[in-house]
Structures are given as structure tokens and as C-alpha cells.
């Protein structure tokens, strides 16, 4: 293995971040200071946390409290390798998913004299760069500093390399997963024929929803509970190689030298085996191209379509049809359907007690309002932000086609409204079945969710046009981060403005006594409608103005 080649490959991966950051690459000079700022900052944060913990620990006069804290710290140290493993696995998988749409970002330069070992190692290490590595540095430095005060330096010396090994283990697993899923996708395409595109859509939907639910559960309160149970769980599943690093640490703290050595060596061996598997899989399927998906066979028969009958021009209908296919066929766009689903399922699961917490029975009206208002509005905001930028490199066609600013906004806006309304209708059905709200509350929530969709859809479409980003490598950005952030804030404020007249009514329905002037629902709702119409009108007009500029400055 040529280590210089590995380092060069990693540096290429790091440099691909230039495109993500949207900087001009002409006469580009990397500022090393900024490159390492993230890691330096993470280290500084870790040291600060370690110092704070140490000073706090040293300042406790009560011995009993000190012992409790000490035991807690040991427990945390022992669970860290497994927690870092899960955390890194989620992060590296997320990073691969985001890159999934771009073939070029994952294809190794196979024509160069690079071995599969070098490529696999570089890919595995590069996958860890960024927040994964920064968080390990942060945790590691916090442990190192705190251990001095807690007088457990030998354990810290053992924990820190274990964290790095855990992260590498996670990244290697992700590498294996990446290669296997490419091959698996190919097999699915081949076997499912014309249905391949829908198999892919539904399969991705199920996978991502499950993935994000685990992610949210892990990052929410469940993770705190996890720390306490990880050590116990490790002992129960000692035969799973992924927990052997944690087992080695546990054995070390108990003074079981033989167990420590056995689990450490077994972990090392497991990492080597996994890496070997990743190399072999890359060698076998690394250059595999999934077969083309055949969607239609037989004679071509053009259809007039419903949209034409509804009064859309053939150009507008064509763009909407094309966008529908983009959102159901492009994997990187599918999360638009996933987020509203997750936002609906998470509170539902919490309500039904499916996340290991006690089921809630009191907040039914709030749950209903959340399920109805959030997913549809969220979908409108996300779609509005992305719908222009998702054109990517193919945007040249939009520019060179005879589309007007009015036509562009009309078809994109209609698309946002249709999809968001479908989500809201589906959510209303689920909400009614689960929460059994009163008729007044149900109607008011439904109307409000439509108002939010219309208003926030117009606001976000304007932002999507102004901030459109067509860079696709290494992953599609679709909108500039700053524009997206500003848009979220504006949408949040405007949503509050639209909902404001109904807040006293909603709060009273939920059962919270609030000293607010009570406005009758039949008065509050029309006020809210008027506010939403004004916002929609202003921002729709603004979107047309933005689209005129966008088409006029079409420098492709």
C-alpha cells in the first residue's frame, strides 16, 4: 500500500468540498487555517468541557456525590466506543446517501495505478472527515483533560484510541454497505423490470423513514437513556464484534487483563476482516454500473393529460410532469417525502408509546394540530426551496426554452401546492383517526394548514429562485444555505402571523388557561385567511419578479 497515494486521494475528497461551499475554483487557494479550524475548534471545545468537568468535580465537597459522579464518568467512558460507533455509522451513512445521486463522486479513478486497498482506505478515512472526526476530537480531548482531574488517566489512554477504532469500524461498515447497495440496486432493477422505478421509490422511502426515525430517536431523549443502558447491553450481546471495543474497556476497568487483551485483539482482527471484505467488495463491484431502467416498452402514444384540461399550457404541464418524475425517481430528492412522513410519525409514535416512553393521552388536540400543520407546511417550504435548484446542470434547458417568468412560477408553485395538499389531506385522515378532534378544531386546523401551504409555498419559491444553486458534485445543493436559513426564519415568523388570530382559541382547546383576549373562531379564521391571502399575493408577485431576473441573467 502506497500511503502517499492514500493521502492524495483523501485530499481530493477534501477538495471536493470547494464545490459544496460554492466557491469560485479559478485561481483557488485553500486556506489551511480554515481547513483545520473545525478540528481546532472541536479540540478547544473538548478541552474547555474537560476543564469545566474537572473543576466542577474538584469543587464538590461531598464524597458521596463525588463517588456517584465518578461512577457515572466511568460508565460514560465504557459506553463511548459503542455510542461513537452508532453515531459515526449514522453520519457516514448520511454522507453516502447525500452523495448517492452522483456517480462521479463515488467512482474511483480506475484508469490510474491505484490499488483497491488504497482506494478503500482513502474512501473510508475521507468519509470520517468533517463532523465525525471533529466530534471524536472533541470527545477525546474532553476525556483526556477530565481524566486528569478524575485520576483515571490510564482508562482515558485506552478510551481515546478505542474511539478512533470505533469510528473507523463504522466507516468501513458504511463502505461495505455502499458497495453492496449499488450491487443490490442493480439486481433489483434487473428483476423488477418496468416496476423498478416504483420499487426503488417505495424501498428508499421505507429505508429513509426508518433511518431518520432511528436518528431522531437517538438524538432526542432516547440517547440519554441509551448511555445508561449501553454498558449493560454490551454485556448481553458480547458475541457481537461491534461491541468488543467496549467490552475490552469494561474488562480493563475491572482489572481483567486476559479479557482486555483478548477483546482488544479480537476487535483489531474484526476491523482487519471488515476492511478486507470492503476491499474485496470494492474490487468486485466498485466499477459496477446498475443496468438501465426500462420504464416503457411498445409504441409511443402522446397523452393530453389532466393538467392541459385544467388550463395549463403545454409547456407548464410538461415542466410539472417532468418535476413529478424528478421527485419520484431521483434518490437525492426523495427525502422531500421522507421529512413530512417522519414529522408525522415521530409524534404519533411518541403518542402511542412506541419509542419506549410512556404513551401520552393528554395532548390529543395538540397532536392533531401538529400532524395537520407541520408536514404540509414543511413540504411546501422544502419544495419551494428546492424546486428550482433541483434542475441542477440541466437548467440550461429551462433557460433555452421559451418559458416566461409567469409560466415558470405558475407551474412550480402549482406543483408545490398539489404535493403539499396531498400530504395535508393524508395527515388529516391519520390525525382524525388517532386524535378524534372536535369538528370545529378539525376544520380550523385543516383550513390553517392550507393557508400555511399557500403562503409559505410562495415565500419559499421566491427564496428557491433567488438562492438556486445548481452545483451537483459531490452532492446536489439546490439552494444556498444562507438563503435557506433566512427563508426558514421568515417562514416561521409568517406562520406565526397567519396563526396568530387562532392562538387563543387553540390554546383554550388544548386546555391551557391563558390571559389572552378570546376571539371567536368564526371571526379569527377569516382574519387568518385575509392575512394569508395578502402574504401569498405579495410573495407570489415577488417570485415572478425574481423569476424574470433569474431568466434574464441565465448565464450558463
Amino acid at each position, binding site marked *: 500500500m502506497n500511503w502517499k497515494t492514500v493521502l492524495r486521494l483523501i485530499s481530493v475528497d477534501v477538495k471536493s468540498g470547494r464545490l459544496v461551499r460554492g466557491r469560485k475554483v479559478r485561481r483557488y487557494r485553500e486556506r489551511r487555517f480554515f481547513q483545520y479550524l473545525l478540528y481546532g475548534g472541536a479540540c478547544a471545545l473538548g478541552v474547555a468541557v474537560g476543564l469545566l468537568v474537572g473543576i466542577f468535580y474538584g469543587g464538590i465537597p461531598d464524597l458521596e456525590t463525588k463517588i456517584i459522579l465518578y461512577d457515572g464518568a466511568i460508565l460514560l467512558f465504557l459506553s463511548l466506543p459503542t455510542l461513537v460507533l452508532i453515531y459515526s455509522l449514522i453520519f457516514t451513512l448520511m454522507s453516502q446517501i447525500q452523495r448517492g445521486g452522483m456517480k462521479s463522486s463515488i467512482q474511483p479513478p480506475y484508469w490510474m495505478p491505484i490499488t483497491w486497498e488504497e482506494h478503500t482506505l482513502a474512501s473510508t478515512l475521507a468519509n470520517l472527515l468533517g463532523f465525525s472526526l471533529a466530534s471524536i476530537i472533541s470527545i477525546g480531548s474532553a476525556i483526556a483533560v477530565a481524566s486528569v482531574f478524575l485520576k483515571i488517566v490510564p482508562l482515558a489512554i485506552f478510551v481515546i484510541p478505542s474511539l478512533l477504532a470505533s469510528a473507523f469500524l463504522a466507516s468501513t461498515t458504511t463502505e461495505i454497505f455502499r458497495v453492496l447497495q449499488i450491487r443490490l440496486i442493480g439486481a433489483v432493477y434487473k428483476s423488477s423490470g418496468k416496476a423498478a422505478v416504483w420499487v426503488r421509490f417505495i424501498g428508499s422511502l421505507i429505508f429513509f423513514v426508518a433511518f431518520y426515525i432511528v436518528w431522531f430517536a437517538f438524538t432526542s431523549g432516547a440517547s440519554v437513556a441509551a448511555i445508561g443502558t449501553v454498558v449493560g447491553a454490551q454485556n448481553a450481546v458480547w458475541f457481537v464484534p461491534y461491541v468488543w471495543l467496549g467490552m475490552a474497556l469494561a474488562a480493563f476497568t475491572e482489572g481483567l487483563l486476559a479479557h482486555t487483551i483478548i477483546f482488544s485483539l479480537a476487535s483489531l482482527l474484526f476491523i482487519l476482516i471488515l476492511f478486507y471484505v470492503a476491499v474485496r467488495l470494492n474490487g468486485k463491484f466498485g466499477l459496477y454500473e446498475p443496468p*438501465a431502467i426500462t420504464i416503457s416498452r*411498445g409504441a*409511443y402514444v402522446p397523452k393530453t393529460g389532466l393538467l392541459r384540461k385544467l388550463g395549463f399550457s*403545454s*409547456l407548464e404541464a410538461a415542466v410539472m410532469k*417532468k418535476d413529478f418524475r424528478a421527485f419520484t425517481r431521483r434518490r437525492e430528492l426523495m427525502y422531500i417525502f421522507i421529512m413530512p412522513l417522519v414529522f408525522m410519525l415521530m409524534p404519533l409514535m411518541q403518542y402511542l408509546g412506541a419509542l419506549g416512553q410512556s404513551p401520552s393521552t393528554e395532548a390529543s388536540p395538540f397532536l392533531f394540530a401538529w400532524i395537520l400543520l407541520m408536514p404540509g407546511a414543511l413540504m411546501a417550504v422544502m419544495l419551494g426551496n428546492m424546486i428550482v435548484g433541483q434542475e441542477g446542470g*440541466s437548467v440550461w434547458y429551462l433557460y*433555452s426554452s421559451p418559458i416566461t417568468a409567469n409560466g415558470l412560477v405558475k407551474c412550480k408553485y402549482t406543483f408545490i401546492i398539489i404535493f403539499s395538499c396531498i400530504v395535508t389531506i393524508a395527515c388529516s385522515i391519520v390525525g382524525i383517526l388517532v386524535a378524534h378532534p372536535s369538528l370545529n378544531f378539525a376544520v380550523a386546523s385543516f383550513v390553517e394548514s392550507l393557508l400555511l401551504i399557500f403562503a409559505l409555498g410562495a415565500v419559499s419559491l421566491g427564496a428557491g429562485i433567488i438562492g438556486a444553486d445548481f452545483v451537483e458534485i459531490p452532492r446536489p445543493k439546490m439552494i444556498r444555505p444562507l438563503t435557506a436559513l433566512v427563508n426558514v426564519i421568515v417562514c416561521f415568523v409568517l406562520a406565526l402571523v397567519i396563526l396568530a388570530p387562532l392562538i387563543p382559541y387553540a390554546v383554550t382547546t388544548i386546555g391551557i388557561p391563558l390571559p389572552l383576549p378570546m376571539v371567536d373562531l368564526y371571526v379569527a379564521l377569516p382574519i387568518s385567511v385575509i392575512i394569508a391571502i395578502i402574504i401569498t399575493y405579495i410573495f407570489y408577485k415577488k417570485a415572478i419578479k425574481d423569476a424574470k431576473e433569474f431568466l434574464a441573467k441565465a448565464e450558463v
Partner: protein
Amino acid sequence: MASLSESAVKLKGVAKRYSDIVAVDYIDLDVKRGEIFGLLGPNGSGKSTTLKIILGLVKPDSGSVNVLGINVEEDPVAVKRQVGYVPESPRLYEFLTGIEYLDFVGDVYGMNAAEKKERINEYLEALELEGREGDMISGYSQGMKQKTILISGFIHKPKLLLLDEPLSSLDPRSARIIKDLLHELASQGVTTIMSTHVLEIAQAMCNHIAIMYEGRLLALGNMEELRQKARLPGSDLEDIFLKLTGTEDVKDVVEALLK
């Protein structure tokens, strides 16, 4: 048929800069209807930018652009309706199938269903894409993608074709079909402005040729006029091009590389 003396494209004092780079340096062009016009030049000489300016994709810093009697700046949409544009190595909507893409293009230009069906099927057959039209474009080879983009430039019967390296990646049969088609369309009054690096094709196909270098128009005319300008009687376009663009030191460069 339109009169050949009528201008299809008229550029007057057109200039475009990108910060310190001069992409197009005050050029004048007058392309007649029914003409096949070649735009030649080394990489970065401003050919593609000129094509984009003609279509209204790039706004010039100065000068006026008139296409088929329409001022591009005033009504770019009207110009786009009458133009078929094939950019160099374009990104297609890869999640669509070939037939969906062409159907989409037909709808964008407002073609009726019967006309769309007839023309798409004709082109698919002619360029041997039949049988693969139901596959997603992401699974196409580069040549198949080029055929698809060429068809999309032709199907709506444009009056002006702006083609940037149209024959790259095409197999010999398809390239011949496109060349013959362009000649036939020219005789029907359709104007073609074509940018290419393949000088033999330009020499064989184009009525008039413009050679660009660093944004400037070095020479403009038919083959005979270009020979006179380069003072190379009887020579081919390659020699003329190399002499005019000051890159005739090819022999020295090759010798240096072989050292």
C-alpha cells in the same frame, strides 16, 4: 422559401467580459437565412459564448443582437421559440427515458400530439434509438445522449439551429444523417450556426466560416476568401486556421514533446 439575402442573425458591436476575461470582443456578424455558418476557434476563443448571446442565454455588455427579425434583448422568449439549440456536452434530465425527454421537448414547444408522435418516431428510427427509447437516459452511452439532444433540437422545426459541436460522439452513420439533414434544411431556408473543432466538417459543410481568437473575429468569409486572407492559395482549412490563429508552430511543439 425565405430569401437568402435576408439576415437570420445580425450581431453588431457585441462584447462580453467576465471580470478580467474578454469572452467576446466587439464582433459584427451577419448570417443569412438558409446558410450553414461555421464558428471556429481554439478553446476559450468565445464561440460558445457567441452562440449563447444569439439565443439570449448570455446578455452582452454592449452591442445589439437581432435574430430572425427579433431583438433578442427585447423578446428573448420569441427568439427561443424559433431556435433549436444543442449545447456542447449538455446535461440531460437523466431520470427521464429518451421518449419522455423528447415528449417533454415537444410539449415545451407546443407541438400537437400527432405531429409530436410522427416526428419523434421518425427521428428515433433514423438515428437508431428505437428499442432503447423506453430506457432511462442515465443508462445511455454518450453517443445515445448526443442523438437524443440532437433530436430535441430538431423536432419542433426551428428556423434557426445553434449547434455547439453537434457531431461529437456520433457514429459515422448518424453523423452522415445529421450532415445531410442540415444541408436539406438549409435548402428549405433553415439557418444553422455551428461551432466545431473538426475543420474537415466545417470546410465540407459551411457556406461561410468565422474564425475567432481570444474573443475577436480574425477572419470571416467562404473558403476562397479565407485562403486569400491567410495568403495560402489552394490550402485546406486546417492550414488556414493554424496560420490565422498563430498556432502553426505545431511541428516545433511536437519535437519538444518528443525530447
